[in-house]
Each structure stands twice: as structure tokens, then as C-alpha cells.
């Protein structure tokens, strides 16, 4: 039982951390509390379905050359398209209300509902099966773990490293850190914040899309028009328990919630039915102990 919690907790924890990192990134850089974050998780998943599973690629001879490239191409396309869509949506409907925090929430929650309706109209209500990108399984501590789940875990680790290098070493990453530390000083350095917010939104949504594809392909195995709500609740609670705007906090928070969910699902009788309240419960417990979250030190922009 412990082995199960450890292995499955790490797998979902890694993906939750990626998801929450996206949410924290756009908040830290642009101040946007993006209530449509879970929607990009869903959009990424559906795009993956369109490109990889629906037979879309049979129209394009390119991937017929080698069928193993199909899922990978679908994954990359799904993530890239989600990035482009989110950047455009940011520019058109979120940026104009940026100064108004409540306005941003109203706009993003509306966006989430619109996306849900669009997906419902296009794909209908039934669950769509999302096939794993890879098949087979391996034995770990006597547990049969699917290769897809191992892949998901490996990808989450790789993306953490890539993201760390990106934020600390690249020019855009430095600009993001500068803006989150002092927005006005950052503008004085010549950082184009308008463009940076758009880029950050794309990156944030791409992380959500990656988490969407990997979580649905490895764990939940289906897509439905309401699969934005749980990821949003997860992001929200992880980011708050980790400390708003803290990258470390989201990383650790993701794993904490991942393990806590598995502990409840596996260790508690009938645990599977109460799993959806785990993230918020963990959040409340953490906030009772540390009101600002694990790494809380709200990035204040006030003078």
C-alpha cells in the first residue's frame, strides 16, 4: 500500500506541479488570476485527441511514414496550438481589463464557460477515450506501473529542469523574474511587458496543456467537456498552499497534493469518492499552519 502511494503520488504530483507552475507563472508575472487555466488543460487534451486519435493525421501523409511519430507530433501540435490560442485570447480579452483584478476573474471564468460550451457543441457530451502515447508496463517495487505513467513522470522531471534553466538563464526568463520582482523598474529596463504577459500566458497554458495530455493519457483516460474544473481547483489550491507566485511552492505543493490524493484514494476506505475534496482540505490545513502558504511572501508591487 505504501509503495502504491509513493509511486502513484509521485506520478500525479509531478503533473499537478506542472499544472500549478503554469498558474503561478502567469500570476507572478502579470498579476492575472487565470480562472481559465483548467480550460487550457482541457483544450490541450481535446487538441491532442483531434490530432492524435481522431484520425486527423491520416489526412496528412507525413506521419504515415512511421506510426510511432504520430502521438508525439500530436502532442507537440496540441501544446503549440494551445499556446497560440491562449496568447491570442489573452491579448484580445484579458489584457484590456488587466488593471481590474475582479474584471480579470470575471473575464477568465466567462472564458472557461464559453470554452466548455464550444467543446460540448463540437464533441458532444460523451467521454472521449484518450489512448496512452506508449503501451506496456514495468515492475516497480512489485507494482505494475504502465509505461505511460512512467513517461508522464519522466516528462514532468524534464520539464522542471527545462523551466528552471529557462527562467534563470534565458533573456525572457530574466525579464519574467524582473517583472515579478518590480514591475515598474522592469519597464524602465526596456522590457515590453505587454508582449511578455502574452508570452507568459502562452507558456502557462502550454504547461496546462502538457499536464492535460499526460494526465488524461496516463491516469484518467478520458476527456469530457467538464475536465477543466478539477484542474482549476487543483491549480488554485496548490498555488495558494505553496504561496502565491512562488515557483518552489507550486512544485512542492503539487507533490504534496499528489501524495495526499493517493493516500486518501488508497488508504481510506471508499477514499476514491472523496478524492475531489483533498486539494482544498490540504490547502486549508497548510493555511491554518502557515497563513501565507509554504513559501508565501506575496510579491507586493506597492511602494
Amino acid at each position: 500500500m505504501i509503495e502504491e502511494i509513493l509511486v502513484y503520488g509521485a506520478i500525479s504530483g509531478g503533473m499537478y506541479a506542472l499544472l500549478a507552475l503554469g498558474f503561478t507563472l502567469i500570476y507572478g508575472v502579470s498579476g492575472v488570476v487565470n480562472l481559465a487555466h483548467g480550460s487550457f488543460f482541457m483544450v490541450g487534451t481535446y487538441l491532442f485527441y483531434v490530432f492524435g486519435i481522431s484520425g486527423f493525421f491520416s489526412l496528412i501523409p507525413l506521419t504515415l511514414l512511421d506510426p510511432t511519430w504520430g502521438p508525439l507530433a500530436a502532442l507537440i501540435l496540441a501544446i503549440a496550438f494551445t499556446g497560440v490560442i491562449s496568447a491570442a485570447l489573452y491579448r484580445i480579452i484579458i489584457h484590456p481589463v488587466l488593471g481590474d483584478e475582479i474584471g480579470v476573474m470575471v473575464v477568465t471564468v466567462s472564458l472557461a464557460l464559453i470554452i466548455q460550451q464550444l467543446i460540448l457543441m463540437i464533441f458532444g457530451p460523451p467521454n472521449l477515450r484518450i489512448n496512452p502515447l506508449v503501451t506496456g508496463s514495468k515492475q516497480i517495487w512489485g507494482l505494475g506501473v504502465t509505461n505511460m505513467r512512467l513517461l508522464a513522470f519522466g516528462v514532468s522531471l524534464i520539464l522542471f529542469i527545462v523551466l528552471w534553466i529557462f527562467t534563470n538563464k534565458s533573456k525572457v526568463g530574466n525579464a519574467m523574474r524582473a517583472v515579478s520582482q518590480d514591475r515598474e523598474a522592469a519597464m524602465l529596463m526596456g522590457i515590453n511587458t505587454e508582449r511578455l504577459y502574452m508570452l507568459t500566458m502562452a507558456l502557462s497554458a502550454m504547461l496546462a496543456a502538457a499536464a492535460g495530455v499526460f494526465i488524461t493519457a496516463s491516469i484518467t483516460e478520458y476527456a469530457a467537456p467538464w475536465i477543466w474544473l478539477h484542474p482549476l481547483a487543483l491549480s488554485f489550491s496548490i498555488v495558494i498552499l505553496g504561496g502565491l507566485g512562488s515557483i518552489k511552492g507550486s512544485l512542492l505543493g503539487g507533490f504534496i497534493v499528489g501524495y495526499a490524493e493517493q493516500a486518501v484514494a488508497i488508504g481510506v476506505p471508499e477514499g476514491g469518492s472523496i478524492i475531489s475534496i483533498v486539494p482544498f482540505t490540504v490547502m486549508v490545513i497548510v493555511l491554518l499552519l502557515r497563513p501565507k502558504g509554504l513559501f508565501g511572501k506575496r510579491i507586493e508591487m506597492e511602494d
Partner: protein
Amino acid sequence: MLEIKDLTVHYDGAMALNRVSLKVEEGEFVGVVGPNGSGKTTLLRAISGVLMEIEPGKKERPSLSGSIMFNGKGIDKSKAWNITKMGVIHCPERRRPFAEMTTLDNLRMGAYLRKNRSEIKKDLEWVYELFPILKERARQMSQTLSGGEQQMLAIGRALMSKPKLLLIDEPSLGLAPLLKEAVLKVIKEIWRSGVTILLVEQDVAITLASAQRIYILAHGRIATQGTKEELMKSRDVREIYLGL
């Protein structure tokens, strides 16, 4: 180089600048003195463009009228980052270093828009020459620096942006007298190297000791302007505005 005409700024109804007109010629060192709340910071933020930028959580933007020209081009509607690109560099009040970056990374942020690595390196050496302490503190987080060191860092960071016109907001704020002198000396040296300077200060002595021409700002208006000698001639100016 810089020409401001009838600049008026309101914050949410309250007037901060009232028909301010001001000129800075290329190569000049111009000072603006005024007490706390007279509108000095607002003036510099209007010039550098950050005043009018959209920010999260900032519902009401100030209103601005009048014109600001830099080298013959109107910049009052330009984006802050484009104004920086033109070489108008603003060293902000209270230094505002990037707290969770090292001294060196802060200086590198100053060179954000620049490409030529060898020139950047040369300027970094120049900054270290002007402020040797920054070289010692290069790997230290900027939030651990003293107030004086942070001021040096802010000026150094501004120099890394290769200013044509350098706007400096209250560099003497909160510094011990000796440190004020030291910072002022470096500002003069930067000016002598060919950078045009617009310094705003509460500290009258510092401004009189450095600027070629001085504007006196009171309640958002330019009360008077002139060289040190011209200003000192009038008893009213001395007593009311300069407190001398």
C-alpha cells in the same frame, strides 16, 4: 533634447503637476528641486512613460495633458519600453533594485535592450570603476546591500542602459552626508562623460552644488528657474524655496 510644454497630470482627480514647462539641452545638467509631494517623481515618471502604463490592480490611470518631446519627437503617448530604447533612462526613486537578483544580474538587466556584448562588458567595467564596491558585491543578492550600495547599483544599472538623457530621482534620499557627496561626485563624472542629466532632488544643497540650471517646483508648478547665481540673487527665492 528634452522639451516639456504645459504638462498637467491628475491622479484620480487630484492635480500633481500643473502646466509644467521645462527644457533640457543636450549636454546640460539640469536640476529640479522641490519639497516632498511637489510632483518631482510624477514628472520623471511622466517622461519615462511608466506613469501611464497599464498595471494589474491599477484601475484608475492618471490623466496627462501637454506635450513631452525628446529630440523633436513627441513621447508622451509612447510606451515606457520604447522611451527606454530611445536612450531616456530613468533611475527611480528609492532605487528599486530587483531584490532577488544578484548585483551583477541587476546590472545585466540594465543592458536588457543591448546586443553588443563587448560594449556591454566595457560599460560594466566602467560601472565597476565608478563604484568599486559593486564589484565586491557582484554575487550578492541586491536586497542584502546597504542603502548607499543600492543607490550605486541603481545608478550603475541605469548606466548599463547606455543613457543619452539620464533622469535621476532623489539619489540622496536616506544617505549619510558623506555618501551623498560620493554619489553626487559620480553623477557629475557621468555628466562629464557626455550624458545629459535631469536630477530631481529635495536636497537643495546637492542640487545647487551640481546642476547648471535649476527649476524650482512647488505644489506641482514651476515657481521659477535659473542658474544658481540667478536664483540666489532673489531674497524671496532664497527664503521661500531654498530655505537659505
